[in-house]
């Protein structure tokens, strides 16, 4: 079960997996995720379903090694099994004909934004994607984006590829040039917050895919709670996508650092 059919490097520390999961492949919709465990006594980690093929019976995951479990996962090879995988979890993205949608992905976030971009394009939207990375090798899913988007704008911090600058600068430029009816973003918290601040003055509805720490992913523990419009919501069952203009990003960022001490004390695998 959950056999890895293919694994390849996408970027430094980022691996792309195709995993056998016929049922999830059939049921899942854009914006949903799975929870994976890769070893006995292991942690349950949420990973977005980046793509799927219902006929081929597989789903795709893109994993960035940031700590123990993601590092262990990225060492797995074709033919290995994921110990546990449950999903699809979370609310699917709202997919409608909005008009023009800008999809902004930062780093690994592009893998999270891609399935939404693909579904939005499938629903007839014009999709403009703005995908950022530290430098050229960190820009991922570009070819996939090109296959479904109207415009694709790679951006790098160091100018080694595409636009030299922040994704938000590029977003400003796009919004100045054409009407954008909706913005979707996924990536590092500071980036999502910056996107929200960029679109707020123009009143463009903006959705962020949040990544709080999770445990069960079924609404049972409340550990994934985020503050949206002053209310607590469980990201695993009410999200993970929320109105970016309402999200308390500062709190999310702090809560995600809750276990830094623990991680330092328990470091077992060197990333």
């Amino acid at each position, binding site marked *: 079960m959950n056999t890895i059919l293919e694994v390849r490097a996408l970027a430094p520390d980022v691996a792309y997996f195709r995993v056998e999961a016929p049922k999830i492949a059939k049921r899942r919709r854009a914006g949903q995720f799975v929870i994976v465990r890769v070893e006995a006594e292991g942690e*349950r980690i949420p990973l977005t379903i980046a793509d799927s093929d219902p006929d081929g019976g597989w789903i795709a995951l893109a994993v960035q090694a940031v700590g123990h479990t993601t590092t262990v996962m990225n060492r797995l090879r074709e033919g290995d099994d994921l110990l546990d995988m449950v999903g699809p979890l979370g609310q699917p993205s709202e997919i409608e004909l909005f008009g023009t949608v800008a999809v902004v992905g930062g780093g690994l976030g592009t893998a999270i934004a891609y399935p939404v971009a693909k579904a939005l394009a499938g629903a007839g939207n014009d999709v403009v994607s703005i995908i950022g990375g530290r430098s050229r090798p960190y820009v991922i899913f570009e070819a996939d984006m090109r296959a479904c988007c109207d415009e694709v704008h790679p951006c790098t911090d160091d100018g080694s590829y595409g636009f030299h600058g922040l994704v938000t600068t590029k977003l400003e430029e796009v919004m100045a040039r054409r009407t954008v009816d909706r913005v979707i973003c996924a990536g590092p918290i500071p980036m999502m917050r910056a996107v929200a601040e960029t679109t707020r003055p123009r009143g463009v509805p903006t959705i962020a895919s949040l990544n709080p720490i999770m445990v069960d992913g079924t609404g049972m523990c409340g550990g994934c709670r985020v503050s949206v419009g002053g209310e607590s919501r469980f990201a695993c069952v009410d999200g993970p996508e929320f109105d970016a203009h309402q999200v308390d990003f500062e709190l999310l960022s702090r809560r995600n650092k809750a276990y830094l001490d623990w991680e330092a004390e328990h470091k077992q695998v060197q990333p």
Partner: protein
Amino acid sequence: MTELTKRERMKLPPTEMPERDPEIRRTGFMEVNFGYDPDLAVIEAQRCLLCARPICIDGCPVGIRISDFIHHVALEEFTEAAEVIGIDNSLPAICGRVCAQEVQCEGACVLDKKGKPIHIGHLERFVADFVRENSPLEPPPNAPPTGKRVAVVGSGPAGLACASDLITMGHEVTVFEALHELGGVLVYGIPEFRLPKDIVRSEIDGLADRGVEFRTNTVIGSLDTLDDLLTEEGYDAVFIGVGAGLPKFLGVPGENLIGVYSANEFLTRINLMKAYSAKAQTPILDMRGKNVVVFGGGNTAMDAVRTAVRLGAGRASIAYRRTMDEMPARVEEVHHAQAEGVVFDMLVSPLELLGNDDSRLVGVRLQRMELGEPDDDGRRRPKPIEGDIFEQPADVVVIAIGNVPNPLLLRTTPDLDRTKWGTLVADTDTGRTSKKGVFGGGDIVTGGATVILAMGAGRRAAASIGEYLATGEW
């Protein structure tokens, strides 16, 4: 065995449960109670007056033939005792450990008036453990295959008990569980020191041996909907035993600070994910020497606060808005908690959880309460004492004020009737819901209740599922 007269029996002192030294158990998750050995069990059983009309049975939610089984124990007929218990209870090793006997069978025992009820729970536990460890009962043979297939959703006590009876009837049974481990609250909620996970495991292995198929990592409502089970997947009936797994929060400011856990999260990290073990990869906040405040007064609160003690908390306290007398927890757990050094702060209610600039919890602001008039269920209602507000340091807060039904399954099945509290509407005797072929029982129907009630509901539903599959009548 020498027959004792009634007078002699009444003179025997109750047989205390041997338990691990509190100082030792503060340091680990080993089970607190050691259990009776056969000698202790026989002595305790001999105290039973074998009443002509044993009213203890009325106190048992599933009507275990208590005096019969105790009589067998007194005669050292442990296998027979286990058989008698097994008629009514499919999870005796578990219920013997976690039932609130003091308000059920033992509360009804005639000797309770003298303050010396028979320790029925300890005896039930002894019988179940002894037989499991020495000469396990042969499970009843499964009836010839009926060709009918039943899906059981949720692997808590309700689902397990239901599956057990259905497989005996000859039906094909698949249990679907959302988590990666089976057992529901028995594995993710109730800690090892009260209910060793091996015991739950052996119940599940027994069911698997008898042909029950288990599918973990399967969330019904998202992977398959309930309707998919009845149509595409070809099940003839479905039992819903998904529990009440959505934690309630306090509704006071500061609940999202780092350091604030729901009891479900705290206990899941420890019990299911084994965060106390050095090898485990799921983190838990460092409690060593810290102040831990647990809000609530039930079994969940006791489990949480005693877990905090074991994680090295400097001060682990229960903050409850009524008094010790109103606390719904099992008395044994309260006594164990006291022996382990848990502080009980009674008549306080949270107003605010206080954080520092990094959004980390540093304290709680509490309102002192007093008891007023009794409310509908007869418990005196707590009310605030005007102006009596104080603050207390806290590094970790655990909120253990109950759970409500998880809407995950029900919201994808709109034609199932629900109450305004979100619980599933199902007939008490048959578990039948508003949807043909769909049954329910346990916490999803009652709201957070008990293991034995869930077990009983699962069994009654199994009987009714059997009838439905035989007759097709709804």
